[in-house]
């Protein structure tokens, strides 16, 4: 289904509110005191939007769903770009191609967030994170380090890219320590 058709269908299925309709004036019932705490408004989402209607980088996420870790390289000057882009910042042309990245690397630096997490990560502490040098590549990428306690982590440990799927179906990746 095209994006436009999807929008049309959503509109059709949405109950219409009559203009000028008077809403009930009874005050809202306060939540029971024993109920769960009220959630604060979720203003922004840290994770990227992935569909072709939202981003020209959707091939990155499609490849990730298929287990491939990719980025863009400029056809003109050969520059490997991270994050993937739609225009090369060196020669300013859109002549980019998708290339596979190495799926292994080594920890270059790491830490762990033990307190002070953003929304969505606050129940997921400690969060071990690090910079990973991809094998045979000039790229040093930041990501979460899985399968290791921060007290056991060391610079130089081998990792591999682990494609993951978020609860809402979006593609995501992390690095898993393999030793």
């Amino acid at each position, binding site marked *: 289904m095209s994006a436009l058709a999807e929008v049309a269908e959503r509109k059709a299925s949405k109950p219409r509110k009559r203009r000028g309709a008077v809403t009930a004036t009874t005050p809202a019932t306060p939540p029971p005191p024993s109920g769960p705490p009220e959630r604060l408004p979720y203003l922004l989402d*840290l*994770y*990227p939007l992935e569909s072709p209607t939202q981003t020209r980088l959707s091939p990155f996420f499609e490849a990730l769903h298929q287990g491939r870790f990719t980025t863009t390289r400029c056809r003109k000057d050969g520059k490997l770009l991270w994050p993937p882009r739609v225009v090369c910042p060196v020669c300013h042309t859109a002549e980019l191609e998708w290339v596979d990245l190495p799926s292994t690397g080594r920890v270059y630096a790491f830490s*762990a967030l*033990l*307190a*002070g*997490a953003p929304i969505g990560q606050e129940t997921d502490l400690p969060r071990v*994170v690090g910079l990973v040098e991809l094998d045979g590549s000039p790229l040093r990428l930041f990501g979460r380090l899985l399968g290791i306690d921060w007290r056991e982590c060391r610079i130089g440990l081998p990792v591999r890219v682990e494609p993951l799927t978020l609860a809402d179906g979006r593609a995501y990746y992390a690095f898993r320590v393999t030793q």
Partner: protein
Amino acid sequence: MSETREVAVVGGGLTKFGVRPLTWAELAQEAGEVLFRAVPALEASAVDSLFVGAAEPERFAFQSHVAPLVAEEMGLAPSRIVQRNELACASGQSAIRSAYAAIRAGLSDVAVAVGVEKMNIPSMAEANSAMACVLDRPWDAAHGLTAPPFFAMVAQRHMLEHGTTEEELAAVSEKNHRFANANPIAQFYEKKFDREKLLRLPLVAPPLRLGDCSAMTDGAGAVVLAAEDRVRDYTDTPAWIRGTGQYADFHNLANMESLTDWTGLTRASREAFRTAGIGPSDLDFAELHDCFTISELIEYEAIGLCPKGDGGSFVADGRSDLGGDLVVNPRGGLLGCGHPLGATGIAQAVEVSQQFAHQVESSRQVPDPEWAMVHNLSGSANVHSVMIYQRGS
């Protein structure tokens, strides 16, 4: 081509920094209160331009278009330039730089630069999300990058490459807290932190502990900048802006060449020294961006106060303290004063102005200062902003 004019900061004031029971807009009102008290000759009608440093009011206060809001709260009606400056942790300095440029170019005669940040909100996870979005949100922050783990990795590499120790990091925090201890506006005013206590505080992002990290702070402040022919209307001790430099070299962490060698700061400070016509040895004090203890150490090195890798011993040997080579952060720094993003750069300029006028508490007064440097980094140290001031007589 018309001649450029000299520009000075002629005074300013700060609200109390800390966890404050008031809103963003109320902080802006307090900025007006402290500004007009600090600069009694200032009339609102003389202010032709307003620059508002505010990093993240959209998320901290769910409010955009804050420049006219601040104008209303402070009773200003700018007739030439009114704008907001957003440069994350350097938003306050960004406002001052724009005011400076406008006056220098002849577009403004008397401008006010304001900084406001309200960071302590009911959901600190929300506030932490705002902070994370300063970084590359989808490609770095979504994977768990926030400021503490970033600067922790910088510290880890500095320790590995140069043998820097946790004790040396704590020495930065101890020094800056000692100055803040005597600064009434500081978040940690009259709070004592010795090195042993700092080394026992909980880890936030190893190897960084709570005392290695600047706090989430509510605070505001404002300074007045004036053209050379208007300076004497306001003060006898102007802080002339003599040099500036700024450099931005990457955004995503993958494109940061070295975690520990901040070449962007080296470039920005060289440009500031070049335009001021002085060198590091001419400085009498420096306000450096100590958002984390490791930042201040690397800044000594990048600016050229000590050789690369020697930042740890520079602070441990007291060379950045009063009586040392160059006193750094006599205000108390971000570590001691707190770091209300947009207000920090304003607070540093107020410190310069007050140091030049010998108006600070005696235990942190620099003896007869003439030259001062102010530095802010923003984001993952991917932007460095530097200004050099000279005391007028």
